[in-house]
């Protein structure tokens, strides 16, 4: 590559090419991240111009904040179910839609539709479905399961959140699995057929191992989105009834912006970030170990 010899044209090119991105990246992500670590050692209330350093007090409070750990436990449960169910549904859809079925492109396009709409709007639509449409059907058809609104019952509201999440993300993950399935080389599958392998054997011993990269991506995405869920939580249940479905993101938001306890809120956000980072990195690390070459 030909380079400018003089220092000024060289610097000018560097600034032009990397300046805007790096400046925005540093000021929007890195500086707030570092400043956020500092905030956890203060007792800032969001209004006062001054705040005092309180050492590790906020972290001590994080471990005593029972509501935080309760909502973290609930989020863990939610993540467990959504990761398994979203990926199962998505993989099955992808598997059914990569075998040359007539109209498979229309199906793919249809399943993807919920991803065009943000979580807020999806949650509002389902709020209507759960509290009006299903209740009406339940009353008319005499199905007790639906005759009262799911969103009014703590247990059922939790499952309502899971159903909406599956519906929201299955189409997106399906697209990623389709890309993975299409990259499995056909010749080895044909060779296996000639050797007498049936469909299930081929799936188990060849397709699934070769799909590990897609599983890593999809599980990573569903894990991260699951732990950070906020939009659907807010618009579908508002954390209710009686705060029974308040996920950890919403708890952090309320600690900081509603209870005006910024130091504690940020400390909880950081603890959450560290836990999620460890979990997702472990998942990618062990996933990579399972990768095979065709």
């Amino acid at each position: 590559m030909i380079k400018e010899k003089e220092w000024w044209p060289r610097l000018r090119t560097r600034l032009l090419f990397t300046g805007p991105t790096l400046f925005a990246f540093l000021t929007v992500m890195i500086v707030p991240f570092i400043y956020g670590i500092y905030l956890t050692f203060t007792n800032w209330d969001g209004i006062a111009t001054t705040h005092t350093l309180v050492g590790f007090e906020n972290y001590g409070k994080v471990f005593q904040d029972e509501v935080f750990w309760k909502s973290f436990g609930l989020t863990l449960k939610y993540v467990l179910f959504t990761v398994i169910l979203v990926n199962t549904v998505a993989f099955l859809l992808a598997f059914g839609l990569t075998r040359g079925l007539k109209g498979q492109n229309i199906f793919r396009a249809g399943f993807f539709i919920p991803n065009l709409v943000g979580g807020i709007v999806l949650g509002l639509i389902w709020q209507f479905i759960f509290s009006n449409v299903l209740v009406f059907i339940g009353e008319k058809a005499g199905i007790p399961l639906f005759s009262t609104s799911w969103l009014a019952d703590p247990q059922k509201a939790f499952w309502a959140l899971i159903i909406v999440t599956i519906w929201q993300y299955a189409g997106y993950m399906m697209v990623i699995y389709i890309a993975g399935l299409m990259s499995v080389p056909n010749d080895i599958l044909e060779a296996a057929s000639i050797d007498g392998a049936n469909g299930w054997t081929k799936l188990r011993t060849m397709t699934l191992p070769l799909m590990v990269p897609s599983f890593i991506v999809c599980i990573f995405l569903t894990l991260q989105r699951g732990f950070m869920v906020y939009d659907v939580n807010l618009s579908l249940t508002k954390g209710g009834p009686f705060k029974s479905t308040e996920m950890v993101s919403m708890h952090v938001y309320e600690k900081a912006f509603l209870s005006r306890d910024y130091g504690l809120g940020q400390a909880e956000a950081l603890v959450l970030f560290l836990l999620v980072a460890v979990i997702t990195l472990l998942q990618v690390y062990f996933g990579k170990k399972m990768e095979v070459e065709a």
Partner: protein
Amino acid sequence: MDTARKGFAGVWLKTIGLALVLALFIFPFIFLLINSFKANTAITSNPLSLPQSLDWTNYRNAFEKMSYTASFMNSLTVTILGVALISLFAAMTAHYFVRNQTKFNQYTFMMMVAAMIIPFQAIMIPLVKIYGTLNMLDNKWALIYMYLGFGSPLAVFIYHGFVKGVPAELEEAALIDGCTRTQTFFRIVFPVLAPTTATISILNVLWIWNDFLLPSLILVSPHNRTLPLSTFSFYGTYSVDYGPLMAGLVLTILPVMLVYLFAQRYIIQGVMQGSIK
């Protein structure tokens, strides 16, 4: 013969099965559409009934109370400028990093990739504090700037992979012919990267157009609201009158659906390509 018939029946069963699942995916939208044309009493007494006529009252109501035109324009401005700035600057940065592989550039690139794991929730509190002190809240230009910051790591990462595939000889030829590096980038490299730009833009449009948490923290006054914000606040203030609410939701979804109708293939391809990286 026997296996052929079995295969035929199997295909039909599978198609019907998939159609049923698809119906499950689509039915919320259908109910939304049906009820958006009905009066509140008709909705609550029977949400399954079809509307008597195409009554646009709900739409007119929602359109006005959501200040639809203003929110739509806000969403459009933020999305278009955000997506354009991310693509342009990220492509330049990725190009620079690939062609000047110094230690400093490599570490900077690695830091950007590593930062992708930081969720927005871990930054939002100090972000509001810092930009509040700088008096930059309630300003959609500040929001666009933030999208550049949050969006560039992934975009630089994806471009980085593709710039490596652009032959350096192509650029050297242009430089020898007297192009400056900037001209070379805009005339040779950026056009070659067009498919990547399309992928990144699609991912970013879906993200920015539908984003809620960041704009809800930055944009305070009603006239600055983007569509998801005004939909949500509309839902909060008129939570008893279902008719206009349904119409409002349809109005919010409509623009994306229209784009999807025409660009469906590219959007799905974009998601595929974005995930392979």
